[in-house]
């Protein structure tokens, strides 16, 4: 009998067993292959830290040759897409609070007159700076764009003036986060990620654990309805979700000093919807997965785009259309906008409807899906 330090045969036996088991678990294997592909797509194509084509509103009160030239220069820039022409300041404010625009460019009525007279002229740029990094590239480019436009416009008699310092000064107001504090943007968003991660994980293992432990048969043999099982499995974690929210909000207020400009009631309401959406996502996973491991992998699979494509880590507007389309389908995207809207912008329910109804719709559709997927028999 050999008694060596390591037995090659035994090692080979273990290797063979592991390979067999790996091959049997198709879902895990598929995810191991799909995950790097997904990451490559998201990091390689979707993410862009220098976002372009940011939605912009323009108010041209001057309507002069110079103002039109400035507008043309801005339109030609890849940084800004001028898609709104609000009539009043109030309308412009609403667009920004609802998150429909990142910039408001306001050209005063005396622009041409001031430039012609050689007086200092100003253009006001209001930037939605709740995400400081999203605005910085565009802001840096605006002064250059306008200087270039002016230079072309002031040929001939005015060329001597154009040679001097820029006749039009761009005044930038950073709204919602004037100091550009990153934490203001990250902390409300982080709540969305924390809840997405923990809530769906908890319910994802809820049914698969019963199946793995063999208790599912007993549960099914009892006279109970799917809705009872779903609510019974979901509601305890709603409480956990509230506790997590409280912890994050307390830290946001006292450690990171994130302002809270909106309604606590509204915040409570949208958080409740969001937590329920995530819990139901987990429940749907647990009706699809055949083991706890698979359910956890599905949760992770779902979490990755929620972090990368929701606007949490990288500017949402910076992503290509297809990635934004996917992003719009993720609950975290809407929740982050809602949280930033409520906490930083003090937005009201009416401003936020565009992000509230998708979450509500997800809650309803996913609930129906979960109840349809839940099997009352062992078939």
């Amino acid at each position, binding site marked *: 009998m050999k008694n060596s330090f390591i037995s090659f045969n035994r090692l080979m036996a273990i290797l063979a067993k592991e390979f067999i088991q790996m091959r049997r678990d198709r879902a895990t294997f598929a995810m191991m292959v799909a995950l790097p592909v997904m990451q490559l797509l998201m990091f390689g194509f979707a993410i862009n830290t220098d976002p372009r084509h940011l939605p912009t509103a323009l108010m041209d009160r001057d309507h002069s040759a110079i103002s039109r030239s400035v507008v043309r220069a801005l339109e030609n820039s890849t940084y800004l897409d001028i898609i709104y022409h609000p009539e009043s300041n109030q309308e412009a404010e609403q667009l920004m609070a609802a998150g429909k625009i990142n910039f408001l460019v306001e050209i005063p009525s005396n622009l041409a007159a001031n430039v012609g007279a050689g007086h200092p002229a100003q253009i006001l740029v209001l930037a939605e700076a709740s995400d400081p990094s999203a605005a910085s590239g565009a802001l840096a480019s605006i002064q250059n764009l306008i200087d270039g436009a002016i230079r072309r416009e002031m040929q001939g008699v005015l060329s001597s003036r154009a040679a001097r310092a820029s006749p039009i000064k761009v005044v930038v107001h950073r709204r919602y986060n004037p100091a550009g504090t990153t934490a203001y943007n990250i902390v409300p968003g982080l709540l969305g990620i924390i809840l997405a991660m923990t809530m769906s994980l908890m319910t994802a293992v809820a049914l698969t654990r019963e199946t793995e432990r063999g208790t*599912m048969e007993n549960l099914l*043999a*009892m*006279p109970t309805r799917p809705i009872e099982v779903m609510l019974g499995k979901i509601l305890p974690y709603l409480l956990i979700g509230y506790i997590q929210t409280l912890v994050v909000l307390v830290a946001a207020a006292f450690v990171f000093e994130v302002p809270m400009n909106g309604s606590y009631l509204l915040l409570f309401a949208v958080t409740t919807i969001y937590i329920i959406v995530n819990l139901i996502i987990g429940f749907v996973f647990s009706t699809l997965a055949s083991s706890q491991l698979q359910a956890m992998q599905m949760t992770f699979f779902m979490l990755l785009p929620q972090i990368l494509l929701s606007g949490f880590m990288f500017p949402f507007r910076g992503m290509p259309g297809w990635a934004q389309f996917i992003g719009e389908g993720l609950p975290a995207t809407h929740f982050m906008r809602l949280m930033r809207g409520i906490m930083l912008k003090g937005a009201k329910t009416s401003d936020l409807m565009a992000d509230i109804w998708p979450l509500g719709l997800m809650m309803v559709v996913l609930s129906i899906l979960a109840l349809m997927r839940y099997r009352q028999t062992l078939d």
Partner: protein
Amino acid sequence: MVSLIAKPENLSEPAVIEVTGLTKIYGTKTVVDQFDLTVPKGSIYGFLGPNGSGKTTTIRMVCGLLVANAGQGRVLGYDVRRQSAQIRQRVGYMTQKFSLWEDLTIAENLDFVARMFQVPDHRKRVKETLNELGLSERANQLAGSLSGGWKQRLALSACMIHDPDLLLLDEPTAGVDPKARREFWQTIHELSDRGITTLVSTHYMDEAVQCDYITYIAYGKKLLDCRSDEIAERVGLFTWRISGKGLKQLAKQLENMPGVEQVARFGTALHASGRDSAALAASVAQLTDGTNMVAQQRESGLEEAFIHLMSGAEDNFE
């Protein structure tokens, strides 16, 4: 030969289970094929057959955990395919594998089950059950820490907590020591006296004897269904009991003799059985005459009958 499947008797009361043609197909494999079952009220119905023969699948179809591909009938008066919710409410189903929650205590498990079945005054009922079980002292112990025998007893108590009219027990005594098994069957008989019907699957012959009726299933098909005391007669088996020295040698010789269909060892004796009475007697006489071995004919028991049935059906895996 007498039919192995008895016609349902004229029952004064409606049968608790009355299903016909139950069929379950997985993919291309027919696990249960055209299964008929009539279980009279208050009876103990034994469900026998090799591993994988379709016992568990049939029990699950009866209680609505699996939907039959074909077949119809009534369980406790409810339609077996459409009214499984009502059936579940009045059935106590004990799964083959322990399926209570190991991370709940004994009391918590019983409490949960009682509340799921909406047992009135469930606290009192749980207390009573704990007392009957003799587990009051250990009520707060996790169910997962119980020994195999205690787990089975807990599971049986749990499935009876809502006073069901029908018990479906899937190999309830597997891995349970003889004393616990005896007590278990005592309980089943008491319940039977109170009019509660039991359908129980088992591998043990001594348990089959305890049943009023027995049905034998192999490859998803019913081979036998009759009162347990009629089985030997229905199988039509004759048996000789041979004792003495040199049985090992004799067993080998007997196996190849005409009329001997099976030879089985029972303690210190050999039982040789066959359906051809004369040929069997001649073969036994030929080998034992003039030796110090004693051969006597005796009535065939359940054991011989089942060994005979099983010799035609090994474990049904394929």
